[in-house]
């Protein structure tokens, strides 16, 4: 692409986990690709607040596209981790039956898992369950075990995908909220609310909660995305209730239920609830729902204690219908819908990248592999993961690895600077990249240090610093 050009082969709207996977997949070809995001940073929507699970492949019937993409996507994570340096671990998943009556649905899940070709899936006796997961309640009567299920840090996954995509030529446009779209010959002209415009031959609608609005802007199908809220509690890494594996209850008709998740970074997450909310920006937690979560989690793991809670949060799943809606629009030309990507969207996302690449090819996009495509991102050493010897060596090369900024998650100044240099300049962006402010003090000790590092590294003044973009200013005055 010519420098400064605003014309692309493909424009992907939405830099969540779907858009990021599609962008990264397309970056392997001789294409000009733009990845458009309305927020100030990537992964700031549904992809930042979810369970962070690579599912076990037994929850959905293969007749659904989402089940097929889940199975395929789950298999792709090991290679992606090796290339993209994000936290992922196959810790395994158990589904715990707490009553004899629940063994019937467990059996059905097992049959479905076998039908889906899930490797290593097993039905478990009470004894086997307690051996697999000693923190489980003694009331557990049996369950299911899927050893291939895992845990992933979703925002780090998206950050790495986008970083790698941009390294391979994808252009990332943040704070670009699509306002209008029109046809100019064989191309789309997309204008943002702040007056920028780009042109693209193909458009992928991966706008998550707002895929319905984006479809409408492009004259595509009329549909309505509903926001289903999931509330969570995050527990300190020193909690006694940390399980070895992801613990699911027996699912209900609407959701997979409330889980106890040992996060890949060592904390414990409990939740989510599932409530449809009318407002797509409603990320508020509620007293009633949080009580429900604690009760449900304690039912499976009695040592869950509210004194270990360090924060709560909520995420919104973009719900359309039972299945994912991934197909070329029948109304809008050269427009691919990637909508209704609720659970198991994160698990399926690498396969969504493949699937959309194939759809674009079918729609006439020419795919020529790049000879010099580089699948890797540069690894950032994390002080938390290093032995004292390794850390010592690193400090000698870069003394800022000796400045611990976040004591709770042991994050050094070097890591904060690295986050900023990779484009994460808000407090939340830095939090998701480094984990600073994510531990037990929730930023009480380190926020002021991070503010100073942002100002020093970016040249921003105090009133330009935000938590997560416009309107969320952190400071309101200077003395």
């Amino acid at each position: 692409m010519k420098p400064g050009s605003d014309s692309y082969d493909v424009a992907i709207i939405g830099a969540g986990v779907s858009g990021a996977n599609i962008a990264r997949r397309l970056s392997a070809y001789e294409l000009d690709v733009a990845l458009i995001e309305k927020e100030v940073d990537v992964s700031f929507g549904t992809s930042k607040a979810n369970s962070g699970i690579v599912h076990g492949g037994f929850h959905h019937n293969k007749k659904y596209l989402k089940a097929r993409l889940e199975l395929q996507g789950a298999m792709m994570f090991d290679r992606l981790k090796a290339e993209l340096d994000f936290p992922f671990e196959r810790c395994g998943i158990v589904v715990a039956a707490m009553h004899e009556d629940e063994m019937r649905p467990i059996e059905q899940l097992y049959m479905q898992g076998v039908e889906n070709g899930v490797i290593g899936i097993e039905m478990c006796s009470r004894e086997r369950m307690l051996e697999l997961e000693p923190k489980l309640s003694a009331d557990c009567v049996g369950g299911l075990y899927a050893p291939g299920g895992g845990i992933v840090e979703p925002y780090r996954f998206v950050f790495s995908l986008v970083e790698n995509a941009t390294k391979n030529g994808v252009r990332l446009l943040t704070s670009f909220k699509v306002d209008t779209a029109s046809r100019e010959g064989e191309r789309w002209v997309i204008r943002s609310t702040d007056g920028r415009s780009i042109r693209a031959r193909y458009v992928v609608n991966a706008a998550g909660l707002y895929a319905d609005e984006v479809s409408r802007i492009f004259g595509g199908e009329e549909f309505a995305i509903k926001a289903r809220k999931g509330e969570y509690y995050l527990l300190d890494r020193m909690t006694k209730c940390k399980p070895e594996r992801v613990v699911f209850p027996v699912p209900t008709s609407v959701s997979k239920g409330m889980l106890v998740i040992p996060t890949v970074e060592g904390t414990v997450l409990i939740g989510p609830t599932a409530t449809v909310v009318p407002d797509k920006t409603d990320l508020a937690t509620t007293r009633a729902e949080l009580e429900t979560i604690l009760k449900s989690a304690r039912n499976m793991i009695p040592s869950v204690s509210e004194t270990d809670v360090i924060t709560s949060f909520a995420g919104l799943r973009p719900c359309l219908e039972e299945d994912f809606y991934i197909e070329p629009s029948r109304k809008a030309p050269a427009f691919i819908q990637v909508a209704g990507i609720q659970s198991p969207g994160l698990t399926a996302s690498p396969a969504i990248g493949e699937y959309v690449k194939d759809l674009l090819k079918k729609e006439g996009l020419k795919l020529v592999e790049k000879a010099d495509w580089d699948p890797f991102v540069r690894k950032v050493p994390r002080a938390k993961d290093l032995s004292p010897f390794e850390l010592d060596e690193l400090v000698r090369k870069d003394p800022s690895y000796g400045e611990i900024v976040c004591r709770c998650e042991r994050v050094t100044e070097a890591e904060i600077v690295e986050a900023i240099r990779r484009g994460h300049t808000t407090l939340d962006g830095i939090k998701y990249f480094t984990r600073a402010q994510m531990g037990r003090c929730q930023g009480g000790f380190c926020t002021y240090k991070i503010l100073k590092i942002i100002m020093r590294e970016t040249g921003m003044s105090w009133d330009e610093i935000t938590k997560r973009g416009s309107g969320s200013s952190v400071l309101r005055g200077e003395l």
Partner: protein
Amino acid sequence: MKEMRFDSAVIGGGAAGMAAALELAARGLSCAVIEREGHLGGILMQCVHNGFGLIEFNEELSGPEFAERFEEKVRKTAITPFVGTTVIEIENEGAEKVLSCVSAGLGVVRIRAKAVVLAMGCRERNRGNIRIPGSRPAGVYTAGLAQRLVNIEGYVPGKDVVIIGSGDIGLIMARRMSWVGCKVHAVVEILPYPSGLTRNIVQCLNDFGIPLYLSHLTTNIYGKDRVEGVEITPIENGALMTEKAFKIPCDTVLLSVGLVPENELSKTAGVEINPMTNGPIVDSSLMTSVPGIFACGNVLHVHDLVDFVVEEARRAGAFAAEWLSGKRPAKEVRVKAGPNVRYVNQSRVDPSRDNKLYLRTLIVKNDALLEVKLNNKVVRQAKKSHVQPSEMISLTLGPAELEAALQVPDSVLEISIQ
């Protein structure tokens, strides 16, 4: 990786750490003080208000002035301060403790010491800890972070403020924010009585006309990007009066909802924690469950005044020195928190000498009676004109009260408040 050896090492260079180190050095022991910030003084450095040192120096000092007096003494001794240095792990290696410390200048240094004094202080409880529902906009800060921003960094975190919790830092910040031109709309306290010192209620709220809502719970925080308001609900007879809930518009919420001793590092060394204080369980010499590791100040239990902190820290330093010289108590008596007592800060007393105890009550009461029983026999009674959980009570028990324990195995000392 460098290794260094000291007789003793103190973790934390605030008031407690400096006071403990001075005692060790005064007894001719080599001592390292390891401080994560770039200078000694700890949290005192951001407490620019007066009120420190009334007991210690018999005058009213600001936090930095109080810290400076100790720092000057430290500089005059052979104490080795390591600033900008964070201890990341404590290991027990035979009779020695090995502290892995990281700093920009030295990389990782392994400091070996025969005795260690924990003096890392505490952290503020945050919104998650007390589970305030609502959205998560910018503008929610702990009072201590706001204090740092205003007093040291020179920034005002917001203009229209509601303070949740009536802890001392919150009260101090109510006054501070008013001074810098902000409007403090309310201080909201869940309990029927304030958590902070009475003098702070008078000087920081009453003098500024800031309303204090007792028995009120913050039931929601509103705002998409930045805080827009909070919902406050009265509590009557233990029940939330949902229909009486009201909203206070504001752009900033400051939290002053308690402090928690920071013992994650202590746990790496195997130190046992008392769930009532979140601090280590200590014996009559302020030694933790790990021989050779002592604790004092706010890492042991949260104190009201820095004057109490340094008093306790001096004892910890002196006890650590005694322990290094081989002295051990001949006999110790178990201490039990009796009726209406939340905790007594040490789990044992030594009947052969004076023992200074700090304790907190669970109740608010006028004309209360503090009673000490040894093996169910009353050995001390003291009238207290007023007791409340936020005011720490101190008490010294000596051989006169305790010598009977020498004859009875498994003696128990019980302290109660009626």
